[in-house]
């Protein structure tokens, strides 16, 4: 690991106390560890317009998972020699160093780069790229706290951020994860339920994350970790899709609320543009 001369480095040989903890016993009464049913998702809090300096932004809480996304653009494309009739979308996902049980590196590692690519592939089909030629829109996502389903939360949060930025889109993108544990399906897994690559016998184990454009009913992202039988995998994807549809009213409600908040009050204040001087497009 190359040294970073700007920061005071921590000790190289430190280890998380997590490894010395005894593994928790799983409850077997059909309920999950936090008392949810198998198809219950955690309560979602979604708020658009949280970063004042960004063109658009959003913050999502799914249970204890907290993700924030900031969108900048459309602005001049980074490589000025490239002329494209289509705009460019970039995406960067980063875990805060304190977000997971084990402290993460401050430099983006391969896992985060992988997720950046997945979220980019999830968002691109939804954005009208031909509306901003020779420009790019940058999406920066930070996972502040990871309690499971962070990828799904990142996808949802980023698309709400894009909508908040006024970037023209065909549809929002809703993300949902589920965990397959043998014959059991757990929607919206928390971090203790997430696929940990543990082999428990030869039963099927895996985790599926889906990014869906709800009103077009098109899947833009599909990630499967682990190993599942063909029928199980198909059923898992269907479960995730229904989870995404369930999230759609929450997204709509959030965007409507944030638009209403940004409409300047009429009367004495006519002629005064709203604070950011921009219009919001709501489909």
């Amino acid at each position, binding site marked *: 690991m190359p040294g970073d001369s700007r920061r005071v480095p921590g000790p190289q040989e430190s280890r998380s106390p997590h*490894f010395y903890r005894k593994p928790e016993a799983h409850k077997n009464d059909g309920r999950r560890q936090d008392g949810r049913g198998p198809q219950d998702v955690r309560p979602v809090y979604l708020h658009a317009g949280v970063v004042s300096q960004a063109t658009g932004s959003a913050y999502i809480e799914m249970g204890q998972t907290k993700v924030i996304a900031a969108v900048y653009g459309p602005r001049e494309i980074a490589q000025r020699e490239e002329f494209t009739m289509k705009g460019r979308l970039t995406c960067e996902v980063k875990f805060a160093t304190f977000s997971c049980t084990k402290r993460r590196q401050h430099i983006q590692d391969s896992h985060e780069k*992988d997720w950046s*690519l997945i979220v980019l592939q999830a968002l691109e089909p939804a954005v009208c790229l031909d509306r901003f030629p020779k420009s790019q829109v940058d999406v920066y996502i930070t996972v502040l706290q990871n309690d499971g389903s962070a990828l799904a939360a990142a996808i949802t949060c980023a698309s709400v951020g894009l909508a908040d930025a006024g970037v023209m889109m065909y549809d929002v993108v809703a993300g949902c994860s589920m965990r397959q544990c043998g014959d059991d399906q757990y929607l919206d897994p928390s971090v203790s339920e997430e696929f940990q*690559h543990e082999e428990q016998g030869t039963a099927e184990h*895996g985790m599926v994350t889906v990014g869906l454009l709800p009103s077009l009913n098109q899947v833009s992202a599909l990630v499967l*970790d682990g190993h599942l039988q063909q029928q199980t995998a198909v059923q898992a994807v269907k479960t995730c899709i229904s989870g995404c549809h369930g999230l759609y009213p929450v997204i709509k409600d959030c965007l409507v609320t944030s638009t209403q908040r940004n409409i300047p009050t009429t009367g004495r204040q006519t002629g005064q543009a709203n604070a950011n001087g921009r219009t919001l497009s709501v489909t």
Partner: protein
Amino acid sequence: GSKGSMASTLGVLSDAERLFIVHGVQDDLRSDGRACEDYRHVEVETDVVSNTSGSARLRLGNTDILVGVKAEMGEPDPGRPKEGKLEFFVDCSANASPEFEGRGGEELAIEVSNALQRIFSSRSTLDLTSLCIIPGGQCWVLYVDVLVLECGGNLFDAVSLAVKAALFNTRIPTVLVTADDEGQQEIELSDDPYDVKRLDVENVPLIVTLSKIGH
């Protein structure tokens, strides 16, 4: 399948060409004469690089992949003391395409690398416990290095085939763990170069890429 940065290597198609391809696909005929579900000719050769523990070279049409596996001893993951490790590195060399010059091929290489990491993350693919030497102390770390010599399309499929062949070819020296007088554990490598163990690659997955053209 994945689009990634592959589209830029093909150049721009005219509308007439695009229509020709779409119409051909509707009749189960692709532009090189294949049916929609046909693969190109595959050639696999193992044991091609002498300095490695295992190697393979694969040609799939115009795609040429070289994989070298080096087995080294290292420390296991603290969370998995009884397992060895698999590390992947993909290099899209500048030979493959002029676009890969310098850092151009890095994005694609990372994408392939991540795909390999993901498919091998499931424990059912390879029995990593067979790579353990001293639980919690020493284990075999297999460095799987993929070199893309020529990029003629369908990179993911070709890479997964080549990796499977290289792992099949991998020979891991047999080690003997003895406890000496002070109770310290000593590792001894067998003198016989043919005293090796092989990996069971039966369940190593293969990637299949599909592309949707037209309806």
